[in-house]
Protein backbone atom coordinates (compact mmCIF):
# COMPACT_ATOMS: atom_id res chain seq x y z
CA UNK A 1 0.00 0.00 0.00
CA UNK A 2 2.75 2.39 0.87
CA UNK A 3 4.48 1.53 -2.39
CA UNK A 4 1.64 2.74 -4.58
CA UNK A 5 1.37 5.91 -2.58
CA UNK A 6 5.00 6.72 -2.98
CA UNK A 7 4.81 6.15 -6.72
CA UNK A 8 1.95 8.52 -7.42
CA UNK A 9 3.05 11.30 -5.11
CA UNK A 10 5.58 13.11 -7.29
CA UNK A 11 3.27 13.55 -10.28
CA UNK A 12 0.57 14.91 -7.98
CA UNK A 13 2.80 17.38 -6.30
CA UNK A 14 4.67 18.76 -9.26
CA UNK A 15 1.50 20.10 -10.86
CA UNK A 16 0.50 21.77 -7.62
CA UNK A 17 0.36 25.56 -8.01
CA UNK A 18 3.11 27.24 -5.99
CA UNK A 19 0.67 29.00 -3.68
CA UNK A 20 -0.50 25.68 -2.25
CA UNK A 21 3.04 24.69 -1.41
CA UNK A 22 3.52 27.26 1.29
CA UNK A 23 2.21 25.34 4.25
CA UNK A 24 4.89 23.31 5.91
CA UNK A 25 7.34 21.16 4.12
CA UNK A 26 6.33 19.39 0.96
CA UNK A 27 7.97 17.04 -1.38
CA UNK A 28 11.20 18.56 -2.56
CA UNK A 29 12.07 18.18 -6.21
CA UNK A 30 15.22 16.23 -6.76
CA UNK A 31 15.23 14.54 -3.36
CA UNK A 32 14.44 10.83 -3.48
CA UNK A 33 11.50 9.72 -1.34
CA UNK A 34 12.43 8.11 1.94
CA UNK A 35 12.45 4.29 1.73
CA UNK A 36 9.26 2.46 2.68
CA UNK A 37 10.53 1.35 6.08
CA UNK A 38 11.10 4.96 7.13
CA UNK A 39 7.54 5.81 6.11
CA UNK A 40 6.27 2.77 7.98
CA UNK A 41 8.24 3.71 11.09
CA UNK A 42 6.80 7.22 11.02
CA UNK A 43 3.27 5.88 10.65
CA UNK A 44 3.85 3.48 13.53
CA UNK A 45 5.25 6.13 15.86
CA UNK A 46 2.41 8.54 15.17
CA UNK A 47 -0.15 5.75 15.38
CA UNK A 48 1.12 4.68 18.78
CA UNK A 49 1.13 8.29 20.00
CA UNK A 50 -2.49 8.76 18.96
CA UNK A 51 -3.55 5.43 20.44
CA UNK A 52 -1.94 6.30 23.77
CA UNK A 53 -3.97 9.51 23.84
CA UNK A 54 -7.29 8.06 22.68
CA UNK A 55 -7.39 4.63 24.35
CA UNK A 56 -7.85 5.95 27.91
CA UNK A 57 -10.88 7.97 26.87
CA UNK A 58 -12.46 4.98 25.19
CA UNK A 59 -11.91 2.85 28.30
CA UNK A 60 -13.24 5.56 30.63
CA UNK A 61 -16.41 6.14 28.65
CA UNK A 62 -16.92 2.40 28.17
CA UNK A 63 -16.58 1.68 31.87
CA UNK A 64 -19.02 4.43 32.80
CA UNK A 65 -21.76 2.81 30.70
CA UNK A 66 -20.84 -0.87 31.08
CA UNK A 67 -23.21 -3.20 32.95
CA UNK A 68 -22.30 -4.21 36.50
CA UNK A 69 -21.47 -7.87 35.84
CA UNK A 70 -19.06 -6.99 33.05
CA UNK A 71 -17.13 -4.68 35.38
CA UNK A 72 -16.89 -7.23 38.17
CA UNK A 73 -15.73 -9.82 35.62
CA UNK A 74 -13.01 -7.45 34.37
CA UNK A 75 -12.08 -6.37 37.89
CA UNK A 76 -11.97 -2.71 36.91
CA UNK A 77 -11.97 -0.87 33.61
CA UNK A 78 -13.34 -2.40 30.45
CA UNK A 79 -12.28 -1.49 26.94
CA UNK A 80 -15.67 -1.86 25.30
CA UNK A 81 -19.10 -2.17 26.97
CA UNK A 82 -21.29 -5.24 26.37
CA UNK A 83 -24.38 -3.11 26.69
CA UNK A 84 -25.22 0.50 27.40
CA UNK A 85 -26.31 1.22 30.93
CA UNK A 86 -26.75 4.80 32.08
CA UNK A 87 -27.44 4.03 35.76
CA UNK A 88 -24.13 5.56 36.87
CA UNK A 89 -25.02 8.90 35.32
CA UNK A 90 -28.51 8.74 36.79
CA UNK A 91 -27.02 8.19 40.25
CA UNK A 92 -24.41 10.93 40.22
CA UNK A 93 -26.69 13.50 38.61
CA UNK A 94 -29.69 12.97 40.86
CA UNK A 95 -28.81 15.71 43.31
CA UNK A 96 -25.94 14.57 45.55
CA UNK A 97 -22.37 15.76 46.00
CA UNK A 98 -21.42 15.42 42.36
CA UNK A 99 -24.43 17.30 41.04
CA UNK A 100 -23.80 20.16 43.41
CA UNK A 101 -20.11 20.32 42.49
CA UNK A 102 -20.95 20.27 38.80
CA UNK A 103 -23.37 23.16 39.26
CA UNK A 104 -20.74 25.12 41.20
CA UNK A 105 -18.17 24.48 38.48
CA UNK A 106 -20.59 25.59 35.79
CA UNK A 107 -21.47 28.72 37.75
CA UNK A 108 -17.85 29.66 38.45
CA UNK A 109 -16.91 29.01 34.83
CA UNK A 110 -19.77 31.08 33.39
CA UNK A 111 -19.45 34.03 35.79
CA UNK A 112 -15.64 33.92 35.75
CA UNK A 113 -15.37 33.76 31.98
CA UNK A 114 -17.82 36.63 31.52
CA UNK A 115 -15.98 38.80 34.04
CA UNK A 116 -12.53 37.90 32.73
CA UNK A 117 -13.47 38.51 29.14
CA UNK A 118 -15.14 41.82 29.89
CA UNK A 119 -12.35 43.25 32.04
CA UNK A 120 -9.61 41.89 29.75
CA UNK A 121 -11.20 43.43 26.66
CA UNK A 122 -11.61 46.79 28.36
CA UNK A 123 -8.05 46.65 29.62
CA UNK A 124 -6.65 45.57 26.26
CA UNK A 125 -8.59 48.28 24.45
CA UNK A 126 -7.47 50.90 26.98
CA UNK A 127 -3.88 49.91 26.25
CA UNK A 128 -4.24 49.59 22.50
CA UNK A 129 -3.58 53.25 21.63
CA UNK A 130 0.12 54.04 21.65
CA UNK A 131 0.67 57.43 23.23
CA UNK A 132 -2.48 57.49 25.30
CA UNK A 133 -2.14 58.43 28.93
CA UNK A 134 -0.01 55.98 30.96
CA UNK A 135 -0.58 53.18 28.44
CA UNK A 136 3.09 52.30 28.30
CA UNK A 137 3.70 51.93 32.05
CA UNK A 138 0.46 49.97 32.37
CA UNK A 139 1.53 47.61 29.59
CA UNK A 140 4.87 47.08 31.30
CA UNK A 141 3.10 46.27 34.55
CA UNK A 142 1.08 43.60 32.72
CA UNK A 143 4.13 42.17 30.95
CA UNK A 144 6.18 42.00 34.14
CA UNK A 145 3.40 40.23 35.97
CA UNK A 146 3.86 37.40 33.49
CA UNK A 147 7.49 36.93 34.46
CA UNK A 148 7.22 36.35 38.19
CA UNK A 149 4.72 35.21 40.75
CA UNK A 150 4.55 36.59 44.25
CA UNK A 151 4.63 33.16 45.83
CA UNK A 152 2.03 30.90 47.37
CA UNK A 153 2.13 32.21 50.94
CA UNK A 154 1.84 35.98 50.32
CA UNK A 155 -0.92 35.40 47.76
CA UNK A 156 -2.80 33.23 50.23
CA UNK A 157 -2.42 35.86 52.95
CA UNK A 158 -3.73 38.53 50.62
CA UNK A 159 -6.75 36.48 49.59
CA UNK A 160 -7.43 35.83 53.24
CA UNK A 161 -6.85 39.51 54.05
CA UNK A 162 -9.52 40.68 51.60
CA UNK A 163 -11.94 38.13 53.04
CA UNK A 164 -12.31 35.77 50.09
CA UNK A 165 -11.50 32.52 51.94
CA UNK A 166 -14.43 30.11 51.71
CA UNK A 167 -16.20 32.15 49.06
CA UNK A 168 -16.47 31.24 45.40
CA UNK A 169 -14.98 34.63 44.47
CA UNK A 170 -11.63 33.21 45.57
CA UNK A 171 -11.82 30.99 42.49
CA UNK A 172 -12.46 33.93 40.18
CA UNK A 173 -10.87 37.21 41.25
CA UNK A 174 -7.22 36.18 41.81
CA UNK A 175 -7.01 34.65 38.32
CA UNK A 176 -9.38 37.05 36.59
CA UNK A 177 -6.78 38.70 34.33
CA UNK A 178 -4.30 36.63 32.38
CA UNK A 179 -1.47 38.80 31.09
CA UNK A 180 -1.01 36.56 28.08
CA UNK A 181 -4.65 36.89 27.03
CA UNK A 182 -4.57 40.67 27.47
CA UNK A 183 -1.50 40.92 25.25
CA UNK A 184 -3.15 38.80 22.55
CA UNK A 185 -6.33 40.91 22.67
CA UNK A 186 -4.35 44.13 22.61
CA UNK A 187 -2.37 43.18 19.53
CA UNK A 188 -5.60 42.20 17.82
CA UNK A 189 -7.24 45.54 18.67
CA UNK A 190 -4.16 47.41 17.44
CA UNK A 191 -4.65 45.88 14.01
CA UNK A 192 -8.09 47.40 13.56
CA UNK A 193 -7.66 50.20 11.00
CA UNK A 194 -7.39 53.57 12.72
CA UNK A 195 -9.52 55.30 10.07
CA UNK A 196 -12.50 53.21 11.11
CA UNK A 197 -12.32 54.39 14.71
CA UNK A 198 -11.42 57.92 13.65
CA UNK A 199 -14.45 58.25 11.41
CA UNK A 200 -16.71 57.03 14.20
CA UNK A 201 -15.19 59.64 16.47
CA UNK A 202 -15.81 62.35 13.89
CA UNK A 203 -19.43 61.19 13.72
CA UNK A 204 -19.63 61.89 17.44
CA UNK A 205 -19.33 58.41 18.92
CA UNK A 206 -17.79 58.26 22.40
CA UNK A 207 -15.13 55.75 23.43
CA UNK A 208 -17.68 53.35 24.86
CA UNK A 209 -19.72 53.50 21.68
CA UNK A 210 -16.62 52.83 19.58
CA UNK A 211 -15.59 49.96 21.83
CA UNK A 212 -18.95 48.23 22.01
CA UNK A 213 -20.18 49.09 18.53
CA UNK A 214 -17.06 48.68 16.39
CA UNK A 215 -14.15 47.06 18.19
CA UNK A 216 -16.03 44.19 19.83
CA UNK A 217 -18.08 43.16 16.77
CA UNK A 218 -14.90 43.16 14.67
CA UNK A 219 -13.10 40.90 17.13
CA UNK A 220 -15.59 38.06 17.49
CA UNK A 221 -13.13 35.37 16.43
CA UNK A 222 -10.40 36.36 18.86
CA UNK A 223 -12.99 36.86 21.61
CA UNK A 224 -14.18 33.31 21.06
CA UNK A 225 -10.68 31.93 21.43
CA UNK A 226 -9.77 33.98 24.49
CA UNK A 227 -13.15 33.27 26.06
CA UNK A 228 -12.59 29.56 25.59
CA UNK A 229 -9.10 29.81 27.06
CA UNK A 230 -10.55 31.49 30.13
CA UNK A 231 -13.43 29.03 30.34
CA UNK A 232 -11.11 26.03 30.16
CA UNK A 233 -8.86 27.47 32.86
CA UNK A 234 -11.81 28.13 35.20
CA UNK A 235 -13.26 24.70 34.58
CA UNK A 236 -9.92 23.03 35.25
CA UNK A 237 -8.87 25.14 38.24
CA UNK A 238 -8.06 22.98 41.19
CA UNK A 239 -5.25 24.60 43.12
CA UNK A 240 -7.20 27.72 44.14
CA UNK A 241 -10.12 25.63 45.27
CA UNK A 242 -7.78 23.41 47.27
CA UNK A 243 -6.15 26.19 49.23
CA UNK A 244 -8.95 28.77 49.50
CA UNK A 245 -11.98 26.56 50.19
CA UNK A 246 -12.11 24.68 53.47
CA UNK A 247 -15.86 24.19 53.23
CA UNK A 248 -16.44 21.01 51.20
CA UNK A 249 -19.94 22.25 50.40
CA UNK A 250 -18.36 24.76 48.00
CA UNK A 251 -16.11 22.30 46.21
CA UNK A 252 -16.03 22.43 42.44
CA UNK A 253 -15.98 19.31 40.33
CA UNK A 254 -12.18 18.99 40.21
CA UNK A 255 -11.93 18.58 43.99
CA UNK A 256 -14.77 16.07 44.01
CA UNK A 257 -12.96 14.22 41.25
CA UNK A 258 -9.84 14.12 43.38
CA UNK A 259 -11.68 12.81 46.42
CA UNK A 260 -13.68 10.07 44.74
CA UNK A 261 -11.50 9.07 41.81
CA UNK A 262 -7.87 9.74 42.72
CA UNK A 263 -8.14 9.08 46.45
CA UNK A 264 -10.72 6.37 45.74
CA UNK A 265 -13.07 7.31 48.54
CA UNK A 266 -16.10 5.11 47.92
CA UNK A 267 -19.28 6.93 47.00
CA UNK A 268 -22.11 6.12 49.35
CA UNK A 269 -25.85 6.47 48.99
CA UNK A 270 -25.84 9.49 51.28
CA UNK A 271 -23.14 11.19 49.19
CA UNK A 272 -25.34 10.89 46.16
CA UNK A 273 -28.68 11.13 48.00
CA UNK A 274 -29.98 8.10 46.11
CA UNK A 275 -31.99 5.41 47.89
CA UNK A 276 -31.68 2.39 45.62
CA UNK A 277 -28.59 0.23 45.09
CA UNK A 278 -25.70 2.06 43.50
CA UNK A 279 -24.01 0.91 40.29
CA UNK A 280 -20.47 -0.50 40.51
CA UNK A 281 -17.92 1.96 41.94
CA UNK A 282 -15.74 1.99 38.79
CA UNK A 283 -18.78 3.00 36.76
CA UNK A 284 -19.55 5.82 39.16
CA UNK A 285 -15.96 7.02 39.21
CA UNK A 286 -15.66 6.96 35.46
CA UNK A 287 -19.03 8.71 35.12
CA UNK A 288 -17.70 11.58 37.28
CA UNK A 289 -14.62 11.68 35.11
CA UNK A 290 -16.76 11.82 31.97
CA UNK A 291 -18.93 14.60 33.42
CA UNK A 292 -15.83 16.67 34.06
CA UNK A 293 -14.51 15.90 30.57
CA UNK A 294 -17.63 16.59 28.56
CA UNK A 295 -17.48 20.41 28.53
CA UNK A 296 -13.89 20.27 27.31
CA UNK A 297 -14.78 17.75 24.62
CA UNK A 298 -17.69 19.93 23.53
CA UNK A 299 -15.69 23.15 23.21
CA UNK A 300 -12.62 21.44 21.80
CA UNK A 301 -13.74 21.37 18.13
CA UNK A 302 -14.47 25.12 18.27
CA UNK A 303 -11.27 25.77 20.09
CA UNK A 304 -9.01 23.82 17.78
CA UNK A 305 -10.25 25.62 14.70
CA UNK A 306 -8.99 28.92 16.11
CA UNK A 307 -6.22 28.34 18.58
CA UNK A 308 -3.34 28.06 16.17
CA UNK A 309 -4.21 31.55 15.00
CA UNK A 310 -4.68 32.89 18.52
CA UNK A 311 -1.37 31.45 19.63
CA UNK A 312 0.35 32.89 16.59
CA UNK A 313 -0.85 36.42 17.28
CA UNK A 314 0.44 36.14 20.81
CA UNK A 315 3.74 34.63 19.77
CA UNK A 316 4.47 37.11 17.03
CA UNK A 317 3.33 40.30 18.67
CA UNK A 318 3.89 39.50 22.33
Amino acid at each position, binding site marked *: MSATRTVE*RPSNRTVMPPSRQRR*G*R*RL*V*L*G*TPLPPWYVQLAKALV*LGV*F*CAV*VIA*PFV*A*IISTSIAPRDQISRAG*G*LVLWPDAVNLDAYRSILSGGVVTQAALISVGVTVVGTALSLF*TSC*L*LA*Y*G*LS*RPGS*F*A*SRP*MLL*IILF*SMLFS*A*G*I*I*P*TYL*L*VRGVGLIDTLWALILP*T*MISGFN*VVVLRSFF*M*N*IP*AELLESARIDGAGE*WRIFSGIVIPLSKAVLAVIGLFYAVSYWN*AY*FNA*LIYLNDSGLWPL*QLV*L*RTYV*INETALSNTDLSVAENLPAQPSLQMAI*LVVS*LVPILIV*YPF*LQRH*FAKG*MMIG*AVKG
Partner: protein
Amino acid sequence: MPPSTAERLAPPVAAAPSKPVGAAHRRPRLPWWRRLSRDRMLVLFALPGMLAVLLFQYVPLLGNVIAFKAYQPFLGIGESPWVGLENFRIIFNGDPAFLAALRNTLILTGLQALLVFPAPIVLALLLNSLFSDRIKRLVQNVLYLPHFLSWVIVVAVFQQMLGGSGLLNNFLRSHDMAALEIIGNPDVFHLLLTAQIIWKDTGWATIIFLAALSTVDPQLYEAAAVDGAGRLRQMWHITLPALKGVIILLFILRLGDSLSVGFEQIILQQAAVGRGVSEVLDTYVYNNGIVGGQWGVSAAVGLVKGVVGVILVLGANKVAHIFGEQGVYKS
Protein backbone atom coordinates in the same frame (compact mmCIF):
# COMPACT_ATOMS: atom_id res chain seq x y z
CA MET B 1 6.70 50.06 20.84
CA PRO B 2 7.96 53.59 21.29
CA PRO B 3 7.71 55.58 18.09
CA SER B 4 10.99 55.70 16.23
CA THR B 5 12.56 59.02 15.34
CA ALA B 6 11.60 58.57 11.72
CA GLU B 7 7.98 58.07 12.68
CA ARG B 8 7.96 61.17 14.86
CA LEU B 9 9.50 63.30 12.13
CA ALA B 10 7.22 62.01 9.40
CA PRO B 11 4.70 64.57 8.16
CA PRO B 12 1.36 63.85 9.83
CA VAL B 13 -0.67 63.71 6.65
CA ALA B 14 1.54 61.17 4.95
CA ALA B 15 1.81 58.95 8.00
CA ALA B 16 -1.82 58.92 9.00
CA PRO B 17 -3.58 56.54 6.58
CA SER B 18 -1.68 53.32 7.33
CA LYS B 19 -1.27 53.83 11.07
CA PRO B 20 -2.92 51.46 13.52
CA VAL B 21 -5.34 52.54 16.22
CA GLY B 22 -4.32 55.62 18.11
CA ALA B 23 -1.98 57.16 15.59
CA ALA B 24 -3.92 60.37 16.04
CA HIS B 25 -2.97 60.38 19.71
CA ARG B 26 0.69 60.12 19.12
CA ARG B 27 2.25 63.26 17.80
CA PRO B 28 1.44 66.17 20.09
CA ARG B 29 3.20 65.74 23.44
CA LEU B 30 0.66 67.41 25.63
CA PRO B 31 1.24 67.92 29.35
CA TRP B 32 0.10 64.90 31.33
CA TRP B 33 -3.09 66.39 32.74
CA ARG B 34 -4.25 67.32 29.25
CA ARG B 35 -3.57 63.79 28.06
CA LEU B 36 -5.31 62.38 31.10
CA SER B 37 -8.41 64.41 30.45
CA ARG B 38 -8.32 63.52 26.74
CA ASP B 39 -7.83 59.78 27.43
CA ARG B 40 -9.91 59.56 30.60
CA MET B 41 -12.27 57.03 29.08
CA LEU B 42 -9.40 54.76 28.02
CA VAL B 43 -7.89 54.95 31.49
CA LEU B 44 -11.27 54.21 32.99
CA PHE B 45 -11.59 51.17 30.72
CA ALA B 46 -8.21 49.86 31.80
CA LEU B 47 -8.84 50.51 35.48
CA PRO B 48 -10.73 47.38 36.66
CA GLY B 49 -8.26 45.02 35.01
CA MET B 50 -5.26 47.00 36.24
CA LEU B 51 -6.63 47.00 39.78
CA ALA B 52 -7.05 43.23 39.67
CA VAL B 53 -3.47 42.75 38.45
CA LEU B 54 -2.03 45.17 40.99
CA LEU B 55 -4.04 43.73 43.87
CA PHE B 56 -3.51 40.04 43.19
CA GLN B 57 -0.05 40.04 41.61
CA TYR B 58 1.83 43.08 42.93
CA VAL B 59 0.45 43.64 46.44
CA PRO B 60 1.37 40.06 47.45
CA LEU B 61 4.96 40.93 46.51
CA LEU B 62 4.96 43.26 49.51
CA GLY B 63 3.63 40.38 51.58
CA ASN B 64 7.01 38.74 51.13
CA VAL B 65 8.23 40.87 54.05
CA ILE B 66 6.92 38.13 56.29
CA ALA B 67 9.98 36.16 55.18
CA PHE B 68 11.84 38.54 57.51
CA LYS B 69 9.30 38.38 60.33
CA ALA B 70 8.01 35.90 62.87
CA TYR B 71 4.56 36.06 61.36
CA GLN B 72 1.67 35.41 63.70
CA PRO B 73 -1.77 35.37 62.11
CA PHE B 74 -3.52 37.09 65.04
CA LEU B 75 -0.98 39.94 65.02
CA GLY B 76 -1.13 40.51 61.28
CA ILE B 77 1.76 41.35 58.98
CA GLY B 78 2.38 44.83 60.36
CA GLU B 79 2.53 43.91 64.05
CA SER B 80 4.55 40.70 63.82
CA PRO B 81 8.12 41.18 65.10
CA TRP B 82 11.08 41.47 62.75
CA VAL B 83 13.55 38.62 62.92
CA GLY B 84 16.02 39.55 60.20
CA LEU B 85 17.37 36.59 58.29
CA GLU B 86 16.32 34.04 60.90
CA ASN B 87 13.83 32.40 58.52
CA PHE B 88 16.49 31.94 55.87
CA ARG B 89 18.71 29.91 58.18
CA ILE B 90 16.76 26.80 57.23
CA ILE B 91 17.97 27.24 53.67
CA PHE B 92 21.58 28.04 54.40
CA ASN B 93 22.03 25.63 57.30
CA GLY B 94 20.74 22.76 55.24
CA ASP B 95 17.60 21.57 56.99
CA PRO B 96 17.18 17.94 55.82
CA ALA B 97 13.54 18.33 54.76
CA PHE B 98 14.42 21.42 52.76
CA LEU B 99 17.42 19.72 51.16
CA ALA B 100 15.27 16.71 50.20
CA ALA B 101 12.74 19.03 48.57
CA LEU B 102 15.52 20.84 46.73
CA ARG B 103 17.02 17.55 45.55
CA ASN B 104 13.70 16.26 44.22
CA THR B 105 13.10 19.57 42.47
CA LEU B 106 16.48 19.46 40.76
CA ILE B 107 16.05 15.82 39.72
CA LEU B 108 12.66 16.61 38.19
CA THR B 109 13.96 19.71 36.45
CA GLY B 110 16.81 17.67 35.01
CA LEU B 111 14.46 14.96 33.79
CA GLN B 112 12.17 17.54 32.25
CA ALA B 113 14.98 19.34 30.46
CA LEU B 114 16.26 16.01 29.16
CA LEU B 115 13.00 14.27 28.19
CA VAL B 116 10.13 16.78 28.11
CA PHE B 117 11.86 19.66 26.36
CA PRO B 118 13.07 17.84 23.21
CA ALA B 119 9.91 15.73 22.77
CA PRO B 120 7.81 18.37 20.96
CA ILE B 121 10.75 19.29 18.73
CA VAL B 122 11.07 15.69 17.58
CA LEU B 123 7.31 15.37 17.14
CA ALA B 124 7.14 18.62 15.19
CA LEU B 125 9.92 17.45 12.86
CA LEU B 126 8.07 14.18 12.40
CA LEU B 127 4.77 15.91 11.65
CA ASN B 128 6.51 18.34 9.35
CA SER B 129 7.98 15.51 7.31
CA LEU B 130 4.53 14.09 6.51
CA PHE B 131 3.36 14.60 2.95
CA SER B 132 -0.34 14.41 3.65
CA ASP B 133 -1.79 17.57 5.17
CA ARG B 134 -4.93 15.74 6.15
CA ILE B 135 -3.15 13.10 8.23
CA LYS B 136 -0.99 15.79 9.75
CA ARG B 137 -3.99 17.81 10.86
CA LEU B 138 -5.77 14.74 12.19
CA VAL B 139 -2.76 13.73 14.28
CA GLN B 140 -2.37 17.30 15.56
CA ASN B 141 -5.99 17.51 16.64
CA VAL B 142 -5.74 14.26 18.56
CA LEU B 143 -2.48 15.15 20.24
CA TYR B 144 -3.53 18.68 21.26
CA LEU B 145 -6.46 17.41 23.29
CA PRO B 146 -4.75 16.36 26.55
CA HIS B 147 -3.41 19.88 27.02
CA PHE B 148 -6.93 21.05 27.80
CA LEU B 149 -7.54 18.49 30.52
CA SER B 150 -6.96 19.40 34.13
CA TRP B 151 -4.21 17.74 36.14
CA VAL B 152 -6.85 16.03 38.22
CA ILE B 153 -8.15 14.31 35.12
CA VAL B 154 -4.68 13.46 33.83
CA VAL B 155 -3.63 11.94 37.14
CA ALA B 156 -6.92 10.02 37.34
CA VAL B 157 -6.44 8.72 33.81
CA PHE B 158 -2.92 7.52 34.59
CA GLN B 159 -4.15 5.81 37.74
CA GLN B 160 -6.93 4.05 35.89
CA MET B 161 -4.59 2.92 33.15
CA LEU B 162 -1.45 1.98 35.10
CA GLY B 163 -2.67 1.50 38.69
CA GLY B 164 -2.82 -1.77 40.64
CA SER B 165 -6.24 -2.64 39.24
CA GLY B 166 -5.83 -0.53 36.14
CA LEU B 167 -6.27 -1.55 32.55
CA LEU B 168 -2.64 -2.50 31.98
CA ASN B 169 -2.28 -4.68 35.07
CA ASN B 170 -5.62 -6.39 34.52
CA PHE B 171 -4.47 -7.24 31.04
CA LEU B 172 -1.12 -8.56 32.30
CA ARG B 173 -2.78 -10.62 35.00
CA SER B 174 -5.31 -12.13 32.66
CA HIS B 175 -2.41 -13.23 30.46
CA ASP B 176 -0.54 -14.78 33.40
CA MET B 177 2.13 -12.13 33.66
CA ALA B 178 3.31 -10.33 36.75
CA ALA B 179 1.63 -7.00 37.44
CA LEU B 180 3.77 -3.88 37.23
CA GLU B 181 3.84 -1.60 40.22
CA ILE B 182 3.88 1.87 38.73
CA ILE B 183 1.41 4.03 40.64
CA GLY B 184 2.44 4.57 44.25
CA ASN B 185 5.92 3.17 43.69
CA PRO B 186 8.50 5.68 44.96
CA ASP B 187 11.24 4.24 42.73
CA VAL B 188 9.57 5.25 39.50
CA PHE B 189 7.67 8.30 40.74
CA HIS B 190 9.92 10.86 39.06
CA LEU B 191 9.65 9.04 35.75
CA LEU B 192 5.89 8.78 36.15
CA LEU B 193 5.62 12.55 36.65
CA THR B 194 7.75 13.10 33.57
CA ALA B 195 5.62 10.69 31.52
CA GLN B 196 2.47 12.51 32.58
CA ILE B 197 3.86 15.85 31.43
CA ILE B 198 4.89 14.34 28.12
CA TRP B 199 1.44 12.81 27.64
CA LYS B 200 -0.33 16.04 28.49
CA ASP B 201 1.71 18.71 26.75
CA THR B 202 3.95 17.34 24.01
CA GLY B 203 1.29 17.65 21.32
CA TRP B 204 0.36 21.17 22.26
CA ALA B 205 3.96 22.30 22.50
CA THR B 206 4.55 21.37 18.85
CA ILE B 207 2.26 24.20 17.80
CA ILE B 208 4.91 26.87 18.15
CA PHE B 209 7.58 24.81 16.36
CA LEU B 210 5.20 23.99 13.51
CA ALA B 211 4.39 27.68 13.22
CA ALA B 212 8.09 28.46 12.92
CA LEU B 213 8.53 25.70 10.33
CA SER B 214 5.65 26.97 8.20
CA THR B 215 7.58 30.17 7.56
CA VAL B 216 10.51 28.36 5.95
CA ASP B 217 10.78 29.14 2.24
CA PRO B 218 10.37 25.83 0.31
CA GLN B 219 12.88 27.11 -2.23
CA LEU B 220 15.59 26.64 0.37
CA TYR B 221 14.91 22.91 0.33
CA GLU B 222 14.91 22.85 -3.44
CA ALA B 223 18.19 24.72 -3.60
CA ALA B 224 19.68 22.30 -1.08
CA ALA B 225 18.38 19.36 -3.11
CA VAL B 226 19.99 20.73 -6.24
CA ASP B 227 23.24 20.89 -4.33
CA GLY B 228 22.81 17.22 -3.53
CA ALA B 229 21.69 17.41 0.10
CA GLY B 230 19.62 14.44 1.22
CA ARG B 231 16.73 14.58 3.66
CA LEU B 232 18.87 14.41 6.77
CA ARG B 233 21.20 17.13 5.61
CA GLN B 234 18.26 19.30 4.62
CA MET B 235 16.90 18.87 8.12
CA TRP B 236 20.25 19.67 9.70
CA HIS B 237 21.03 22.71 7.58
CA ILE B 238 17.59 24.21 6.95
CA THR B 239 14.91 22.93 9.31
CA LEU B 240 16.85 23.01 12.56
CA PRO B 241 18.36 26.48 12.01
CA ALA B 242 14.82 27.72 11.34
CA LEU B 243 13.85 26.48 14.79
CA LYS B 244 16.89 27.78 16.62
CA GLY B 245 15.41 31.10 17.77
CA VAL B 246 12.23 29.47 19.08
CA ILE B 247 14.16 26.73 20.84
CA ILE B 248 16.37 29.24 22.62
CA LEU B 249 13.39 31.40 23.58
CA LEU B 250 11.49 28.47 25.05
CA PHE B 251 14.57 27.19 26.81
CA ILE B 252 15.09 30.54 28.54
CA LEU B 253 11.48 30.63 29.66
CA ARG B 254 11.76 27.04 30.86
CA LEU B 255 14.89 27.94 32.79
CA GLY B 256 13.01 30.63 34.67
CA ASP B 257 10.53 27.98 35.74
CA SER B 258 13.18 25.42 36.59
CA LEU B 259 12.38 25.48 40.30
CA SER B 260 8.65 25.06 39.60
CA VAL B 261 8.14 21.46 38.64
CA GLY B 262 4.38 21.10 38.76
CA PHE B 263 2.63 21.83 42.02
CA GLU B 264 -0.87 20.59 41.17
CA GLN B 265 0.38 17.44 39.56
CA ILE B 266 2.56 16.49 42.52
CA ILE B 267 0.26 17.45 45.37
CA LEU B 268 -2.41 15.20 43.87
CA GLN B 269 -0.14 12.18 44.07
CA GLN B 270 1.77 12.97 47.24
CA ALA B 271 -0.43 10.86 49.50
CA ALA B 272 0.12 7.78 47.34
CA VAL B 273 3.94 7.78 47.30
CA GLY B 274 4.84 9.67 50.47
CA ARG B 275 6.80 12.87 50.84
CA GLY B 276 10.24 11.25 50.51
CA VAL B 277 10.32 11.36 46.73
CA SER B 278 7.46 13.74 46.07
CA GLU B 279 8.30 16.79 48.19
CA VAL B 280 9.47 19.63 45.95
CA LEU B 281 9.98 23.29 46.80
CA ASP B 282 6.41 24.31 45.99
CA THR B 283 4.83 21.50 47.98
CA TYR B 284 7.28 22.20 50.82
CA VAL B 285 6.08 25.80 50.95
CA TYR B 286 2.45 24.68 50.87
CA ASN B 287 2.80 21.88 53.40
CA ASN B 288 4.86 23.88 55.90
CA GLY B 289 3.14 27.20 55.42
CA ILE B 290 -0.54 26.91 54.65
CA VAL B 291 -0.98 23.45 56.17
CA GLY B 292 1.69 23.54 58.89
CA GLY B 293 1.57 27.20 59.90
CA GLN B 294 5.30 27.97 59.56
CA TRP B 295 4.52 31.08 57.57
CA GLY B 296 7.83 32.90 57.79
CA VAL B 297 10.05 29.98 56.82
CA SER B 298 7.80 28.99 53.93
CA ALA B 299 7.65 32.54 52.66
CA ALA B 300 11.46 32.69 52.82
CA VAL B 301 11.77 29.54 50.73
CA GLY B 302 9.18 30.85 48.27
CA LEU B 303 10.98 34.18 48.04
CA VAL B 304 14.36 32.62 47.35
CA LYS B 305 12.75 30.41 44.73
CA GLY B 306 11.13 33.37 43.00
CA VAL B 307 14.30 35.45 43.03
CA VAL B 308 16.37 32.56 41.66
CA GLY B 309 13.80 32.14 38.87
CA VAL B 310 13.98 35.79 37.82
CA ILE B 311 17.80 35.74 37.97
CA LEU B 312 17.89 32.61 35.80
CA VAL B 313 15.65 34.17 33.14
CA LEU B 314 17.56 37.44 33.03
CA GLY B 315 20.91 35.65 33.09
CA ALA B 316 19.96 33.23 30.32
CA ASN B 317 18.62 36.11 28.29
CA LYS B 318 21.94 37.91 28.69
CA VAL B 319 23.78 34.81 27.51
CA ALA B 320 21.44 34.56 24.51
CA HIS B 321 22.23 38.17 23.61
CA ILE B 322 25.94 37.52 23.87
CA PHE B 323 25.54 34.71 21.36
CA GLY B 324 23.64 37.00 19.03
CA GLU B 325 20.18 35.58 19.63
CA GLN B 326 17.12 37.64 20.40
CA GLY B 327 15.99 35.89 23.57
CA VAL B 328 12.81 36.92 25.36
CA TYR B 329 13.20 40.64 24.78
CA LYS B 330 15.51 42.73 22.69
CA SER B 331 18.53 44.24 24.38
